[in-house]
């Protein structure tokens, strides 16, 4: 009986793959909007009526926007200076979100197999590490790309794609772990969790947002907004 319940639960969790496929049509363009097909390197100018596949991306320039139709009916508005992968718009249930977050946490745990795996010999430490590689040259970093990703996540949050917003923020933070966003991303992470009634995760995110907003290099306006909103949210959630 237990096995049967588990099987049914897994079936409920893992919905049919065909249901997750998504098609996006560009309905309206305002200003400079570009799309990128699949894994191509170049962006091309978008046109109204264009159909995007599930591996494509869309990006709006500063002061531009686009209206999208998702699988023929739902309307989605992408605001200024934002980037979105079509996969960011796929259905993500709360259970899937939970699995995703758990996966992120599990990734941090060293796999047990490395300890039990057959090894030839009995080497305590492997030597030969190079001292040259690993340092990031500041010139190689492109601090502005994350802003478009962040704006894409905000667009998702504002249009009630809460689980999608959370996943996009996590992915952006994975690619850009050292960005100086003054806690803005964690603020929206907290907002999304709060809207999903995940109080613990919301409080945790707001606290990180509050902490990051205190970074001296932060823009004073952003810092004040993030700190005030995070503080209010923490009070609202009885975390203070």
């Amino acid at each position, binding site marked *: 009986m237990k096995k049967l319940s588990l099987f049914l639960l897994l079936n409920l969790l*893992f919905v049919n*793959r065909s249901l*997750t*496929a998504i098609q996006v049509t560009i309905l309206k363009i305002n200003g400079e909007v570009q799309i*990128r097909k*699949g*894994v*191509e*390197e170049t962006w091309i100018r978008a046109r109204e009526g264009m159909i995007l596949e*599930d*591996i494509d*991306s869309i990006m709006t320039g500063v002061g531009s926007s686009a209206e999208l139709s998702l699988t023929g009916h739902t309307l989605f508005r992408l605001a200024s200076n934002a980037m979105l*992968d079509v*996969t960011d718009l*796929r259905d993500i249930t709360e259970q*899937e979100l939970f*699995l995703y977050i758990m*996966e992120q946490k599990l*990734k*941090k745990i*060293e*796999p047990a197999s*490395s300890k039990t*795996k*057959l090894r*030839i010999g009995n080497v305590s430490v492997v030597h*030969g590490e190079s001292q*040259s*590689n*690993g340092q*990031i*040259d500041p010139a*190689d*970093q*492109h601090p502005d*790309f994350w802003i478009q990703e962040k704006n894409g996540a905000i667009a998702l949050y504002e249009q009630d794609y809460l689980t999608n917003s959370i996943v996009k923020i996590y992915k952006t933070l*994975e*690619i*850009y*772990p*050292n960005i100086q966003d003054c806690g803005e991303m964690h603020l929206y992470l907290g907002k999304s969790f709060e809207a999903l009634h995940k109080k613990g995760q919301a409080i945790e995110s707001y606290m990180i947002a509050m902490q990051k907003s205190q970074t001296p290099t932060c823009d004073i306006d952003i810092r004040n907004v993030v700190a005030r909103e995070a503080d209010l949210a923490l009070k609202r959630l009885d975390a203070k």
Partner: protein
Amino acid sequence: MTRRIKLLICSILFIINVQRLDAVSRSSGIGLKMSYWNITNHPTRIATSNFGRHASVDISGFGAWIHFSSRAHLNWFFEFQIGAIGGTHMAVEDYVAGTTEVSALVPILLGMRYDMMSSRIPGYIQPYINGGGGPYWISSIKTRGAIELNEQEIVSYNQFGIYAGGGANILLTDWLGLNFNITYHFVDLKFEEEFSGLEFGLGLNFMWGRRSEIFEIKDVQLIVSDIYPAYYQFYNTYPIALVRVKNIAGYPIEVNLRSRLANYSERPSISGYKRIENGKSIDIPVTLIFGSMIQEISTHESAVLDIEVEARVGKSHIKTLSAPITIHNKNAWNGDIDKLNYFITPDEPDILKVSRELSKNLNEYENNPLLHFKQAVYIFDYLNSSGITYHKDPNILFYEDDRVQYALETMQIGSGDCDDLVVLYSSFLESLGIKTAFVEVQDPNKEIAHLYLIFDTDIQPEQGRLISSNEKKYIIREKGNGVKTIWIPLETTLISAGFEEAWKVGAVQYLRDGIIENGIRDGWVKIIHVQ
């Protein structure tokens, strides 16, 4: 003096001989013995008095037995014995008048015998206790007579009785033992009955059949019935089979297991002695130690797995069993993605030589985060220029397994299928210290699984735009130390199409199958690190 020396030598030889014997009783035995049993209640004697006018002769009771025993369970035996005991009392008075009493006793007995400490004693003495019961047929003839007077009384009857006693078998050979016993017979179930009394016996016991067992092999579970030479080292620690051994000795024993594959094991694999408490069972894993000859097998062959279980209690008790095993050829692979590691040969001298020679051309990237990426491109281009192409595996009649070529073999042959090319490219990259992983796609909607490669560029995520402006072209993976780096998926079957195309196709595959179709989450896309 000479006689003493002979006696001493004989004694030593006897002791040496009997020490070699296994004291565990065999399953059946038949014996003959002589016994003394006082059934007349007179001591055995000849007496005269008054210059011969009075004389008496008493024989208190002697007889012979034949007995048969057969094992019922472990150290318990059924026994059947039949004996004939006779005693007499004759008295003469005044040379003419006399009385004669002759008593005869024929017990027909059934009982049980328990061999004590049968397997714990390595030597020759096998003590036992026994008991039982049955009818005692009693016959008594009394004659009283003088010159003209003669009286005769014959009495014959049956009485039920029981017996209890003990004794020992001293084993002279594997099939012959000297038996002595002391038994008390309660005829008519009474201690004080006329014929009740102690019986002393001495005889020979002939034995045959199986010895009693101190352990049982309850189950043999063959875990691996197919040996793949490519990962022969794996079997040194991974159990080929599990043997369940049960202790039925009645006390704790220690069991050792030896296993070998005839003609392929250089020496037996030994489990070491494991203690088993009385009545308990343990599973002992069977492992194998292979020699290098196993890697020279070009076609699949049959072999026999020999297992020997030895219990050490005083002397060794050994049981052997065997099982057929198939040994596949050196290129065979059972399709387990985590076993593909064993085909990767980064330390192969020819691979090392080529990869390091090629790497010398990239000295300008020595302190550059792009070093691994550039090396990977260079190696890929080298394989491309070497004319390596994709080619399906050959059809081998009546053979189902996948076939994987080692890197050098693919270089010599010039082509391979997806697993061969993954092994080839991974071997080269690993020889340069670049971490690689297999991506196995077992799409439930497709019949055949696919394999491609990802490798670690050692580039941190923030530097991703050094290699691509499209983050969908790479995967961010976290190392054990928490550092995240960029991994690149490559469709290695597209060696002839060049690195950029192989990368694009690999990235799209990963994106579609792994992420959009949820293959990674649902488990049909697996990433296995080469370690």
